[in-house]
């Protein structure tokens, strides 16, 4: 056979081998790199590091546990064991006998049990045979039947035997157990003592990473896919999906991969631990923690104390969530497994790398530190050593659609699910933030399509009657700079802002030009407003006394909504300075600051405004305080003394003719040719030109968004819609040249603009024109948003709401407060906020801003926290509509104002109180009729407890009860005959039992103090009834208890029974008739304008007005 010819190839085999070899090597190398890269992925290091921390802690705890193991007790136990065995040895014979007996019986028992079971099985077989033979009419049927009977009897015998043996065996066992028990007890105790150490050593093995330990082997490269110890940890959230434009995908939060201890208490930072332990201790001290949880809480406090004392602080990302009781914790309302992390914090749910997860820095410093890198890995992926030095390899990533909210903006995430709530429970920050947005009326210029910000009134007053209220001179100065008139005003500054006049960003020539243009615009706006204003002539007040007026203003309730000063003492420096809004409660910023009201307006206007604000314009938010003519005159006299003459001294530059012309023409040439525009302007008088420009300027600045202005009805608001502003991509925000810049704010403090959306919004709010810096723009294109002079805190809050308004949707079952009960409450809360009820009342535990202006707490308006449980709905409805139907405390200076609520609004509020107070909307016990016997007993109790010392019991006219004429007016309490109309039946006795629990600090004394040990009520009459002082009451009461003294005494010590009797008595003396609210609410004789002079018919009057307004048009370039 011929040797086979080598197959001819067109290529060289050896070369091919080489190529294969090389490429295999390359493949191996690449595989190695892939494996290597996977092995050093960042999140793995975080897990390893956390395991190391856990090991450290367990070892430490073990040492403590071992030292605490109480060696003495252990030794004692060992001793005991030794003794036990000695004793056992001594009584060995007895023990052995017992053991033997038991062993024998155990055998017997087994045998008996077996016998019984076999017999039972046989019987079952026999039953079948018997039945079959009977049915088939076999011959041996009778025989089989007899056999069955025999076996059945046998089984019964065996059962008796088994029971007997079992009993004997158990007795023998008990006998031995007696011997063994002591030994076993000692062993159990020992186990208990060493349990914590045992547990810890078990835990230690789970985090053991020592060389060649199970965990270590499983974590080696290529092996780690089998059953990895270090692995990605994720939560899949189906109903909190992410909108990927065309489909919804479930949210998969992997944050826990690095944030290992986020839901495990014990890894708090030291500062957090200090805060938490203090909080818990306070709760513990105040008995706010139920008895069964006290021990657990104490343990937790001890743990937190250990954290504070530990040498090292836990750093992020290994820290525990600081609010475990609210978020993430399994017992919280937002458990990790149901809510994950990114639904609140945002960020990229599936990312496992620091930068890609969407971490957002809160400050430039933080940003730089995060982005720091060691030179070795610059431009490459970070190594574990980088992480160890806390270099996160952060890179700004514009393509992350949902970057996390930076620190200070966390609660923005609440809005997504809680937008249908006025106040988010325990979300104080977001609650305050939405309140701030409401206060400043952001929603007026920027549409926010959200229940919380819809149906709110325009924040500014109606300008339809501005000529009746003030002068053009005042209006000019006001629009120029409202803050010069009142430092706390919410009217923003539109003119002379940074982008117009600031020397650091505007060239000098442009600056002068801008001032001329702005002056012209202000003159034009004033001209337009006064030109279109009504000129009603209001009734003049009578002679008033300013001193009395001041007293009325301070006592009747004005100070709940208004501030009357611009000067406050700085807490830090002790110096007097100009007030800021923040110096006063939110509620007191609701009305305008009364400073300078006499300079701003005139006596006739004030008089009619305070008498009935709604006569000036129908939507006026101020309610009527039902002032009499004399009171209104006094108040007017006082308010006129509040002057600010310096404001009217600032110079008014006349409008520049050329500027007016240029601006007006600028608008005209939008629709006309240059020539037509010129000729149109020539045909207009100076005044007409101003009015025309005024109209266009109001349109430009959007004044009509906040104010009702004639000629602008129904226009869309001026600002950008904010409904989904938080989802707008970063690149859509115009940072101008301010990206990564610093600027000095008006307080001289440096602020930073960093390249994040919250930062953009914050800086925009702090200085709305800042993004125009160093840009070249024509006058009308410059940024127009006015300056609200927000403090950093206010700006942060508003920015938080803005970034929280996103298009992200959550499933309806995850939305808060969508159930009917909550909806009713929230609608009411919105009204409460809208009408500023908290100025005077405590609602939902907050409010009563007026308290700081009334010295004696006894003369404050009522706390409405228990109102739903307290007041009957029909009463409340009537009272809200018309507070004059009943005067409960006629001696109060402060008055419940008349809000002119319509039925729907009053109903909304009544329902709110009833639902929030968990009371039924209608009290079914309203018509209860107590038995005469109960009333008699109640009357005696009433006398014994001396209730009449404060409460009147003679029927009175609800509308005008007499003020009790006593020397000491502080001892007064409501007349009890009004209770039946007003209070809920079951509430009365409850209130008498525990007044201080319902309204802390109430003047109603606690007559039935709780026993500190049992928490039950104690009765002061329990012992007193037997004293000679009370003999007379006892003799009156005895017949009512059918002479049963025991029963009488029992009743006297039963607080619940006593208060029920008191309730019956109070109910029996109650009057039952009350006037209903008039359909229009209470409207005192309204001061109406006596005549109206339409502006068109009074050109003479108007021209003098205008001349005053605009001092002779200057002979500028125009003529």
């Amino acid at each position, binding site marked *: 056979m011929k040797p086979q010819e080598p197959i001819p190839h067109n290529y060289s085999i050896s070369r091919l081998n080489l190529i294969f070899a090389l490429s295999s090597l390359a493949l191996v190398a690449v595989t190695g790199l892939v494996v290597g890269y996977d092995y050093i992925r960042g999140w793995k290091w975080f897990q390893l590091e956390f395991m190391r921390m856990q090991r450290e802690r367990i070892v430490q705890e073990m040492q403590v546990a071992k030292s605490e193991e109480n060696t003495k007790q252990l030794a004692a136990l060992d001793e005991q064991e030794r003794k036990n065995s000695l004793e056992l040895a001594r009584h060995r014979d007895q023990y052995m006998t017992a053991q033997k007996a038991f062993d024998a019986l155990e055998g017997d028992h087994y045998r008996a049990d077996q016998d019984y079971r076999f017999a039972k099985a046989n019987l079952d077989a026999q039953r079948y045979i018997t039945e079959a033979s009977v049915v088939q009419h076999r011959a041996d049927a009778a025989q089989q039947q007899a056999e069955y009977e025999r076996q059945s009897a046998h089984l019964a015998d065996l059962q008796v035997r088994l029971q007997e043996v079992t009993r004997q065996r158990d007795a023998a066992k008990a006998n031995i157990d007696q011997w063994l028990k002591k030994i076993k007890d000692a062993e159990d105790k020992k186990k208990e003592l060493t349990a914590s150490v045992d547990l810890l050593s078990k835990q230690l093995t789970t985090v053991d990473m020592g060389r060649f330990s199970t965990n270590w082997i*499983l974590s*080696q490269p*290529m092996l780690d896919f089998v*059953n990895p110890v270090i692995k990605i940890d994720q939560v899949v959230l189906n109903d909190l999906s992410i909108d990927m434009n065309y489909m919804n995908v479930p949210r998969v939060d992997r944050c826990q991969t690095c944030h290992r201890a986020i839901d495990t208490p014990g890894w708090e930072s030291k500062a957090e631990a200090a805060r938490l332990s203090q909080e818990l201790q306070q709760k513990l001290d105040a008995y706010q923690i139920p008895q069964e949880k006290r021990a657990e809480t104490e343990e937790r406090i001890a743990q937190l104390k250990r954290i504070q004392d530990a040498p090292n602080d836990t750093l992020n990302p290994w820290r525990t969530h600081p609010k475990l009781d609210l978020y993430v914790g399994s017992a919280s309302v937002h458990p990790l497994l149901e809510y994950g992390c990114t639904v609140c914090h945002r960020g990229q749910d599936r990312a496992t790398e620091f930068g890609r997860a969407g971490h957002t820095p809160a400050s430039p410093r933080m940003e730089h530190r995060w982005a720091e890198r060691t030179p070795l890995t610059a431009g490459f992926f970070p190594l574990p050593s980088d992480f160890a030095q*806390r270099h996160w390899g952060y890179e700004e990533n514009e393509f992350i659609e949902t970057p996390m909210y930076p620190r200070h903006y966390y609660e923005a995430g609440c809005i997504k699910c809680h937008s249908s709530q006025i106040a988010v429970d325990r979300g104080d920050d977001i609650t305050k933030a939405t309140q701030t947005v409401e206060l400043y009326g952001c929603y007026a210029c920027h549409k926010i399509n959200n229940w919380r910000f819809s149906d709110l009134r325009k924040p500014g007053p109606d300008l339809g009657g501005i000529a009746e209220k003030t002068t053009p001179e005042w209006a000019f100065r006001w629009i120029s700079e409202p803050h010069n008139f009142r430092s706390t005003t919410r009217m923003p500054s539109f003119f002379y802002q940074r982008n117009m006049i600031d020397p650091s960003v505007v060239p000098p020539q442009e600056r002068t030009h801008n001032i001329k243009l702005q002056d012209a615009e202000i003159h034009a706006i004033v001209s337009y407003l006064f030109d279109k204003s009504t000129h009603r002539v209001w009734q003049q007040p009578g002679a008033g006394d300013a001193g009395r007026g001041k007293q009325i203003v301070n006592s009747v309730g004005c100070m709940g909504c208004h501030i009357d000063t611009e000067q406050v003492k700085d807490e830090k420096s002790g110096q007097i300075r100009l007030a800021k809004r923040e110096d006063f409660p939110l509620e007191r910023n609701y009305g305008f600051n009364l400073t300078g009201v006499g300079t701003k307006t005139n006596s006739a206007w004030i008089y009619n405004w305070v008498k009935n604000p709604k006569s000036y314009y129908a939507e006026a938010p101020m309610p009527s305080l039902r002032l009499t003519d004399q009171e209104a005159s006094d108040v007017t006299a006082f308010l006129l003394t509040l002057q600010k003459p310096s404001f009217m001294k600032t110079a008014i530059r006349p409008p520049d003719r050329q500027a007016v012309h240029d601006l007006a023409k600028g608008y005209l040439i939008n629709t006309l040719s240059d020539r037509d525009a010129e000729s149109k302007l020539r045909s207009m008088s100076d005044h007409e030109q101003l009015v025309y420009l005024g109209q266009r300027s109001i349109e430009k600045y959007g004044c009509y968004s906040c104010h009702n202005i004639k000629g602008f009805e129904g226009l869309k608001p001026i600002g950008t819609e904010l409904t989904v502003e938080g989802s707008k991509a970063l690149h859509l925000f115009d940072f101008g040249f301010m990206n990564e810049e610093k600027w000095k704010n008006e307080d001289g403090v440096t602020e930073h603009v960093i390249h994040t959306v919250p930062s953009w919004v914050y800086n925009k709010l702090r200085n709305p024109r800042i993004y125009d810096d160093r840009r070249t723009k024509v006058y009308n294109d410059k940024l127009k948003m006015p300056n609200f002079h927000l403090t950093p805190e206010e700006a942060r809050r508003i920015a938080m709401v803005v970034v929280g308004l996103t298009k992200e949707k959550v499933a309806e079952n995850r939305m808060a407060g969508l159930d009917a009960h909550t909806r009713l409450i929230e609608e009411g809360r919105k009204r409460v906020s809208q009408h500023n009820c908290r100025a005077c009342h405590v609602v939902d535990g907050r409010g009563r801003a007026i308290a700081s202006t009334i010295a004696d707490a006894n003369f404050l308006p009522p706390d409405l926290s228990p109102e739903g449980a307290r007041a009957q709905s029909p009463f409340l409805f009537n009272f809200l509509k018309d507070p004059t139907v009943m005067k409960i405390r006629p001696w109060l200076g402060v008055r419940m104002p008349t809000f002119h609520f319509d039925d729907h609004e009053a109903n909304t509020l009544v329902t709110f109180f009833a639902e929030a107070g968990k009371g039924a909307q209608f009290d079914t016990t309203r018509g209860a009729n107590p038995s005469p016997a109960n009333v008699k007993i109640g009357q005696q109790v009433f006398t014994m407890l001396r209730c009449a*010392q404060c409460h009147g019991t003679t029927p009175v006219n609800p509308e005008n009860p007499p003020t009790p004429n006593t*020397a000491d007016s502080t001892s007064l309490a409501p007349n009890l005959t009004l209770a039946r109309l007003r209070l809920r039946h079951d509430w009365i006795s409850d209130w008498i039992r525990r007044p201080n629990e319902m309204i802390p600090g109430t003047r109603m004394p606690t007559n039935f103090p709780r026993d500190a040990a049992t928490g039950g009520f104690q009765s002061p009459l329990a012992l007193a009834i037997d004293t000679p002082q009370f003999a007379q009451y006892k003799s009156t009461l005895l017949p009512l208890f059918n002479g049963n003294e025991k029963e009488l005494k029992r009743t006297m010590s039963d607080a619940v029974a006593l208060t029920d009797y008191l309730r019956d008595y109070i109910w029996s003396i109650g009057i039952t008739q009350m006037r209903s609210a008039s359909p229009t609410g209470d409207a005192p004789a309204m001061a109406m304008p006596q005549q109206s002079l339409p502006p068109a018919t009074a050109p003479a009057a108007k021209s003098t007005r205008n001349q005053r307004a605009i001092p002779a048009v200057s002979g500028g370039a125009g003529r």
Partner: protein
Amino acid sequence: MTMKKFVSVLFATTLLLSIACGKGKEASKEDEGEDDEQTTTTAAASTASGAPAAAAAPAAAVSADAATLTGLVKFEGAAPKMTNIQMSADPYCQSQHSSAPATEEDVVTGPAGELANVFVYIKDIKGNFPAPSTPVVIDQKGCQYHPHVNAVMVGQPLQIKNDDATLHNVHAMPVANSQFNEGQPVQGMVSTKHLDKPEVTPFKIKCDVHGWMKSYMAVMPHPFYSVSQTNGTFTISNLPPGQYTVVAWHEKYGQQEQQVTVGAKESKALNFTFKG
């Protein structure tokens, strides 16, 4: 579970042997750099823990070296007239003062301008001072509180007694302790209270039934306090030697402080003057 683990270990070991790869990178145990939050938190923690360490605790027991601090509180200037209390609102109260009407107690001065009802105490003395179990008693008699200014130690029982045949309510308005408001309709009734938090600036106790009734009560963590008598004198005894700040508090004229150093067994005098 264990079975699964065992199998995987076995599998892993085989793989390990076949690959024989000895790569192992131990996580660095260097301590971490500082986080932004970190700087503020440690600062807060260190200030919080620094305070108690500085205080040296003197012995609780009365030492043989104990010093005594006595003094006189005077009022400078024309003392305001003690106005009569209008008690006509409650006939019972009025009947208790039929011979001479009761006077307001906010400023009580002696003939030479001695000022009574001034609460004098040592500020910031550290140590553990057990509270006596004997109760401090406030008596409501003739619709006035007796005494007008007083103090209890933390944990010491406070008994409030009604000696009048009328209704009083004891409305205490402490800041640190929990407030209470109890009615006492029965003559001879006693309420016992335990105040468990120190409150060195006296809080007000009032009766809402009788607007003129006021009393002040401090809750002290130590026994070194006194109230000036009608002759203006006060005495603080058993005081361990040392340097102290002494505070004198008056309900209308506010408080004053003085530094004092007392040696062993020394009797030191210290006078306060309040101006109207």
